[in-house]
């Protein structure tokens, strides 16, 4: 290992190791590890997606047709755990691995061997977690939030908690690495306030990760000792408090949802200026808005708990704090629109996904504002209205931004252009189906359909059927995405230029396409005109 790690320093300008095992399993290269993260997250996206297909198939019409209720609960639980910890988070870490060093002019991540470890923990963690589905007693079925006492009734608690510990360790190491890279390895002249918004968003996200992953670890460890070692943290009969778990969980959980959206803000803030050919509007306001949202994320957790019977004072505090988030989020949306205003726009696939992100994420934000109103939340809470809300911010928000990023940087990663026609087909198919899938769920929730139920009254039948059709359609559309990526990487004949997009600015476009195994061995010279946000004055 020591040999492999020091090897790079002795020989300049050599390529990747030829040996497959050495290249991918023993890699310390930020680009290869980034690729591993992205491929892993795509695999998890399809596994988590297949669970969603089971859910939508059972909900296609009233009556139980396909699965037992307990298995249905395993599916909803696993779908969430896999999508959150397996698809969205690793995808963002993969993008950070690939792009942060390229964007700040660093030769690699600050801690390359830890980088390898933080990735290779993940396949083991998810094998452990997914294996519970094949065990007697089944997988976790108490929801991804794992509220006790229900979650303690399962047989898979120990497996899932160990898997979550592993994922947490991986995330914390990834976050340390990103912070160390951004703070220590920027090229001379790349001041903090000259960094691309994506790098800023990840710097802030990484601090959120370090702050809250240990809190999750603590919460699940208490679950573990409650179940196996006779403690009573959350056991009312032993003097504990089940609501304590919810407070601890959501103290992690709310920053967690911003961990899944702040890097998306960063991505969209890179893509829109590129295709509008105009610098991002209000760069400093954008950075400040991300920081404010991150700060507020720590003081709003109990808005997930409006219906647990909090004292009125607490409800009022958490309601006000939550509503406040609308202000910096609004600033971001207005600034994206202003970036487009007066630009010279073209609508390649990354831009289409970025625009869809702004519109559909904003719709998710609107339902979020409505959910913040505590008295109204007494109705919305734990209904399909909430399901619609968080899928608008996570699927058309986080996942769309990741897809946009993949299209945007695929030419840089692979050296080829993807097929624009099929990219556009993928976009239109996805954007229509995702609304068919999730928009009717608002109506279902308002009409009174609770979440996490495998069967429902006939009054909810039509919208559920529409939603399921949208679900199958959206799921199938992602196979187009897979096809476009495979075509681009292995079959596309169209070479990508170094600056793959006409309006693209930033250091990553100054290196060749595909980006060579080692970049910026010598720190680049920074020209302010070359930066995505132009001159930052005043």
């Amino acid at each position, binding site marked *: 290992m020591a040999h492999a790690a020091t090897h790079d320093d002795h020989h300049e300008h050599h390529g990747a190791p030829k040996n497959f095992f050495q290249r991918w399993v023993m890699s310390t290269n930020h680009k290869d590890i980034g690729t591993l993260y992205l491929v892993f997250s795509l695999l998890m996206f399809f596994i988590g997606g297949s669970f969603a297909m089971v859910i939508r198939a059972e909900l296609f019409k009233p*009556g139980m047709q396909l699965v037992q*209720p307990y298995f249905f609960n395993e599916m909803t639980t696993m779908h969430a755990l896999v999508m959150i910890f397996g698809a969205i988070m690793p995808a963002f870490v993969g993008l950070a691995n690939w792009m942060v060093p390229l964007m700040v002019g660093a030769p690699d991540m600050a801690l390359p061997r830890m980088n390898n470890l933080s990735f290779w923990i993940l396949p083991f963690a998810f094998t452990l977690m997914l294996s519970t589905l094949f065990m007697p007693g089944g997988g976790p079925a108490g929801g991804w939030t794992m509220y006790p006492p229900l979650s303690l009734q399962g047989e898979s608690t120990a497996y899932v908690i160990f898997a979550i510990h592993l994922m947490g360790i991986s995330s914390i190491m990834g976050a340390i690495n990103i912070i160390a890279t951004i703070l220590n390895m920027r090229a001379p002249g790349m001041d903090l306030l000259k960094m691309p918004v994506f790098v800023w968003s990840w710097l802030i996200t990484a601090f959120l990760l370090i702050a809250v992953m240990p809190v999750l670890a603590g919460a699940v460890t208490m679950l573990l000792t409650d179940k196996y070692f006779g403690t009573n943290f959350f056991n009312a009969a032993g003097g504990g408090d089940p609501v304590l778990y919810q407070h601890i969980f959501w103290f992690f959980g709310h920053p967690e949802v911003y961990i899944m959206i702040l890097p998306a803000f960063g991505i969209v803030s890179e893509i829109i200026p590129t295709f509008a050919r105009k610098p991002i509007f*209000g760069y400093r306001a954008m950075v400040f808005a991300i920081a404010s949202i991150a700060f507020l994320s720590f003081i709003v957790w109990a808005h997930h708990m409006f219906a647990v019977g909090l004292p009125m004072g607490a409800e009022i505090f958490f309601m006000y704090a939550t509503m406040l988030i609308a202000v910096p989020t609004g*600033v971001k949306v207005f600034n994206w629109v202003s970036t487009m205003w007066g630009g010279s726009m073209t609508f390649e696939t990354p831009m289409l996904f970025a625009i869809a992100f702004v519109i559909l994420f904003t719709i998710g934000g609107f339902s979020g504002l409505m959910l913040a109103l505590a008295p109204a939340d007494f109705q919305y809470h734990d209904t399909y209205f909430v399901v619609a809300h968080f899928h608008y911010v996570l699927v058309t928000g986080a996942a769309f931004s990741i897809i946009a990023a993949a299209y945007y940087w695929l030419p840089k990663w692979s050296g080829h252009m993807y097929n624009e026609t099929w990219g556009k087909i993928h976009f239109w198919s996805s954007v229509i189906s995702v609304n068919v899938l999730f928009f009717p769920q608002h109506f279902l929730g308002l009409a009174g359909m*609770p979440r996490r139920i495998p*069967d*429902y009254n006939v009054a909810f039948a039509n919208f559920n059927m529409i939603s399921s059709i949208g679900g199958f359609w959206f799921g199938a559309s992602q196979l187009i995405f897979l096809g476009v990526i495979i075509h681009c990487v292995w079959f596309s004949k169209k070479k990508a230029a170094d600056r793959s997009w006409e309006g693209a600015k930033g250091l990553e476009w100054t290196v060749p396409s595909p980006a060579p195994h080692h970049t910026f061995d010598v720190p680049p010279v920074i020209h302010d005109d070359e930066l995505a946000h132009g001159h930052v*004055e*005043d």
Partner: protein
Amino acid sequence: MTSGGIRRSVTAWAATACALFGGAAWANPEPDQLNMTKGASEWSPYALHMVGLWVCVVIGILVFGAMFIAMFRFRKSRGAVAEKWSHSTKLELIWTIIPVIILIVLAKLATNGLVTFADTTGSEMTVKVTGYQWKWRYDYVDYKGKAVDQVGFMSKLEESSDRTRQLKSNMDPTKVQVDGYNTYLLDVDKPLVVPIGTKIRFVIVGGDVIHSWWVPALGWKMDAIPGIVNSAWTNIKEPGVYRGQCAELCGQDHGFMPIVVKAVPKAEFEQWLTTQQDEAKAAKAAAQTAQTAPAPANQG
């Protein structure tokens, strides 16, 4: 697009939205229902919900409208040349301050709603609700200042729904009906009977895991948590049958523990309560006789 065009499209949108969302008067889920129920209780978040919805609709029209105008006007294919500006303190102040003002108004309305919701004083009746896997228990605690003697019962999914909902039962959920209304998974063997025009305090607890007691027509849900006593109140205006479901994941049959509240005029309720109390007394007496001198027959 001209400003007249914008005004016309706004009007068209508003008209469509009115048709879709206006005049919602359902108490129980109706097929293709789009909006929240106005509720049958004195307290309802419906008005706040509508204010929030309209605020979002109007902001949405403005923001998305601006985006679409930008997308049509500033296209490279139409020869648009990118401008250089990237900053405007005035604009940024405007779109920070205006949302703050809107939020303050919303916060004021919501706070009023919370204050009235939290006030369970002056209740004339108390019902204890206990959530179990997977049924509810109702115990009548007091009525008009007098303790109610031993009136309490379990309430669980009624049988035809229960048979129909079994995996591959091949039974048709649309056939589960009461008076022409489909009650599949929304009907119980024994409903909670309460009087109208009475402020009723519910005390809500969990018997095993966390459940959540939710009847949309009453305007709220409240978690039923082991070891914690939650309270909430309602004052139902109209007689009727109000249906709801458990709203907190509580295990495999979470989807199969409905709630039915039957609201009746006060006189009818008092009569019902007396009958229940008498039956309870008779049952208790019978049990005592059975203890002292074991008898084979059970009058229960």
